[in-house]
């Protein structure tokens, strides 16, 4: 539904872009004789040497959109990829439509709109050729950036037509003809990341690399206790410390009226600013809610799980009666911790405030959100805020929240006319994140006398206020096996927290896949079957279950296909398969993924030997070389969540973890062999940044059970769990 809305909005936006085209024309027309690049629409310029510059509209966080989205335009424009240059657009959704790197939605929301952008420009070029040659447009063909008239053997490069084409009215994007899939020469063909050569040679690309004359640097001391306020700090550092320029007390960002205080130190070097933090000697008042701890949350959750749920999420059939009449029941409690994002490029942003206007160079996944929050915090009209999108050294959902943009905007406003680059150090980055919320589940399943799953109950304990889960702490009422078996009862209870929470790659799914696919593996064992077969039975015949709210429809046939595929790849159930083998399936972000993991365990240490992945993201894998990279990265990321020891703990209202020694990320020695296959189904392509991650976690813990007989019901996995 949301995707549909975005698509409609986007088309309207492209038409608007067509309107601005007319305004642009006075300039290109005047310059046309001199051969200046001709502007065909907001995304496409064609230069006299037939070099085509295509605008990349979305933030690049490593998911490959800076390459993939322009591929869609280039395909329908009918040019060779070698003649294409990519240029990052500025942030302006009125021109470019939604510019968000989130929810793996760049592919489904742009698949048709950006192809139409290319096709509309192609139609204008063909029309220009038809005029020039005095022939019908329908007699012309295109290819490699040229228009051809087969009957006369004539051809002309786009560059010679572009100045005229730019004066033509843009066609209705919804009515332009698109290529048949069989004619694709770019979509489905591997294209190297457009920035790869620059990355490899160390060119400045990232937000943190922004530099400009007269720039000063800011370090930031944020109240360590969430919700705390500034009590005092040393004054006059700019007089007592060489290199320090100013100290700027500020409100810590994202929620402009929020209570999280901070003090920025501005200096002529970031090193100097960061070193001055000790001398700043900031003191803080605790939050009004008191000093909370994760230990306290765990105790409260354990008690709450035993009470009736505070609210119902989903009910079908009669779970009480079904469980009472069940031949066998299975119960277990699952839990998972708060997690930080740990993007390798720490939070940073550069800003210049001049005469009531502000310009930002922002590594952000959601620039328009940053614009809104800065407008509110600084009391500026949205039009006074110009946002440049830099390449981003990792997103994973952290940069959907723009606290760091608001912070640097506040600092820049205090130093008008001077560009300011603010950088978090690693400890700031880990201790001032928006964390994947912890959660707990008490599950009970009932089997009938034939071993069929007939009933499932879950009491989910999460965080929230006034009966509403906080950000990323919700559970979908449609969580399978809801709607797939007869008797289901999902209830939810919410604890209060001061922890700021947010979306972490495959949000909610990364936790729900672990919980439900691990528990269903227990159910399968009790039913004397295995998880792939249990899933096949639960999924039943191929059909489409309707979506609801932000949930897309769920196609059980597509689920069956990836389950069958991965089982065939791994030789699931065949004689001689390794003992430590586990399976997981999950549907998220419109992608269907089934995975098999082989492990071995020695002295409580898990070694992942091999992972097989079968995924269905539609009828085309747009850029295969990147698609495989995304899947492999997702798999290792998911394994790291479970195995590397990741958890964020709160003590006395503040986060304990401080760097990669106590919030460890997966390293190269934990890298398994990974075999990936895509099942092509007759559906429009969807995104790949997230959906391969969730199923690897249950596949891993199910493999651990197969190898050791020990059930992992809480993350992260520790050696003690497996040796006790």
């Amino acid at each position: 539904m949301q995707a549909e809305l975005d698509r409609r909005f986007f088309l309207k936006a492209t038409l608007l872009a067509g309107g601005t085209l007319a305004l642009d024309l006075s300039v290109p027309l005047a310059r046309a004789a001199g051969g200046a690049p001709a502007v065909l629409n907001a995304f496409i310029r064609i230069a006299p040497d037939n070099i085509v510059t295509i605008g990349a509209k979305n933030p690049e966080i490593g998911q490959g959109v800076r390459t993939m989205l322009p591929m869609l335009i280039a395909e329908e424009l009918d040019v060779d990829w070698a003649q294409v240059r990519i240029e990052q657009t500025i942030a302006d959704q009125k021109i470019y439509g939604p510019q968000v790197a989130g929810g793996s939605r760049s592919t489904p929301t742009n698949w048709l709109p950006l192809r139409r952008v290319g096709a509309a420009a192609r139609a204008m070029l063909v029309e220009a050729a038809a005029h020039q040659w005095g022939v019908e447009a329908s007699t012309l063909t295109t290819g490699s950036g040229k228009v051809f008239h087969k009957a006369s053997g004539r051809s002309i490069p786009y560059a010679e037509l572009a100045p005229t084409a730019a004066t033509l009215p843009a066609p209705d994007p919804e009515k332009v003809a698109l290529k048949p899939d069989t004619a694709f020469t770019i979509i489905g063909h591997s294209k190297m990341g457009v920035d790869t050569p620059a990355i490899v040679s160390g060119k400045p690309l990232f937000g943190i690399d922004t530099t400009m004359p007269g720039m000063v640097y800011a370090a930031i001391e944020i109240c360590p206790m969430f919700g705390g306020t500034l009590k005092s700090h040393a004054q006059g550092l700019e007089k007592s410390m060489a290199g320090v320029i100013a100290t700027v007390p500020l409100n810590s960002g994202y929620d402009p009226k929020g209570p999280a205080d901070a003090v920025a130190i501005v200096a002529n070097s970031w090193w100097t600013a960061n070193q001055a933090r000790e001398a700043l000697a900031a003191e803080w008042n605790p939050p009004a809610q008191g000093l909370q701890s994760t230990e306290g949350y765990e105790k409260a959750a354990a008690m709450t799980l035993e009470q009736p749920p505070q609210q119902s999420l989903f009910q079908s059939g009669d779970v009480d009666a079904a469980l009472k009449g069940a031949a066998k029941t299975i119960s277990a409690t699952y839990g998972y911790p708060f997690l930080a994002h740990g993007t390798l490029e720490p939070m940073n942003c550069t800003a210049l405030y001049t005469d009531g206007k502000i310009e930002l160079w922002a590594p952000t996944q959601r620039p328009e959100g940053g614009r809104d929050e800065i407008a509110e915090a600084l009391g500026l009209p949205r039009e006074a805020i110009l946002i440049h999108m830099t390449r981003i050294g990792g997103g994973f959902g952290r940069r959907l929240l723009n606290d760091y943009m608001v912070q640097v905007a506040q600092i820049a406003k205090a130093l008008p006319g001077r560009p300011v680059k603010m950088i978090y150090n690693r400890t700031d980055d880990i201790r001032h994140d928006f964390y994947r919320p912890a959660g707990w589940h008490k599950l009970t399943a009932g089997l009938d006398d034939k071993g069929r799953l007939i009933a499932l109950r879950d009491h989910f304990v999460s965080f929230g206020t006034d009966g509403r889960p906080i950000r990323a702490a919700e559970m979908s009422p449609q969580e399978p096996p809801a709607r797939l078996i007869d008797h289901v009862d999902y209830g939810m209870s919410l604890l209060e927290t001061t922890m700021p929470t947010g979306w972490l790659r495959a949000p909610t799914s990364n936790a729900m896949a672990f919980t439900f696919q691990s528990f269903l593996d227990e159910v399968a064992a009790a039913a004397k079957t295995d998880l792939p077969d249990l899933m096949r039975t639960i999924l039943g015949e191929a059909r489409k279950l309707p979506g609801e709210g932000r949930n897309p429809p769920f196609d059980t046939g597509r689920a069956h296909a990836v389950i069958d595929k991965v089982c065939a790849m791994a030789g699931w159930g065949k004689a001689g398969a390794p003992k430590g083998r586990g399976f997981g399936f999950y549907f998220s972000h419109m992608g269907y993924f089934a995975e098999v993991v082989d492990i071995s365990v020695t002295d409580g240490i898990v070694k992942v030997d091999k992972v097989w992945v079968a995924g269905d993201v539609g009828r085309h894998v747009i850029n295969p070389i990147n698609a495989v990279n995304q899947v492999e990265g997702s798999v290792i990321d998911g394994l790291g969540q479970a195995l590397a020891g990741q958890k964020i703990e709160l003590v006395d209202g503040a986060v304990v973890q401080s760097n990669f020694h106590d919030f460890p990320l997966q390293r190269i020695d934990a890298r398994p062999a990974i075999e990936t296959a895509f099942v092509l189904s007759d559906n429009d392509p969807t995104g790949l940044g997230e959906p391969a991650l969730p199923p690897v976690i249950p596949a891993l813990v199910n493999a651990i059970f197969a190898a050791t007989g020990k059930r992992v019901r809480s993350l992260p996995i520790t050696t003690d769990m497996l040796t006790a």
Partner: protein
Amino acid sequence: MAYDLMINGQPRRVSATEDKPLLWVLREDLDMPGTKFGCGAGLCGACTVHVDGMAMRSCQLPIAEAVGKTITTIEHVASTPQGKAISESWVALDVPQCGYCQAGQIMSATALLSENPQPSDEEIESAMSGNICRCATYTRIRSAIRQAAGIDAKEVRHAG
């Protein structure tokens, strides 16, 4: 105070406090932002440079200790045969995702091949274990090192 450094074959004079790490000297004073800040504690490897041919974490090297040493950064790594081979295989296999860690990965990989032209998988993993890739491009990092070393590693298709 002023320090004379030898960076990428060029003498450079920098004015800084003696404890300023080479990382920040490169990024702020010498306008060479290819070397990246990741953790500031020698834990992630994003800031790896070569000091007298050895891979070192520049966030842990005060400028005063860099004097008299030969320093090579990502901007100049392709000037040696090993660095060139590594850079080319990184491009051929399209290793990066976000790309932020890759300068450090390339510096560590180049130092490895300079010392050990035919590393085993275990030697690759040992030499590269100090470099974190948050996007987890490890499969391709290993393949790219094998390819640069001339060890057959056809695990990933070439980019078109």
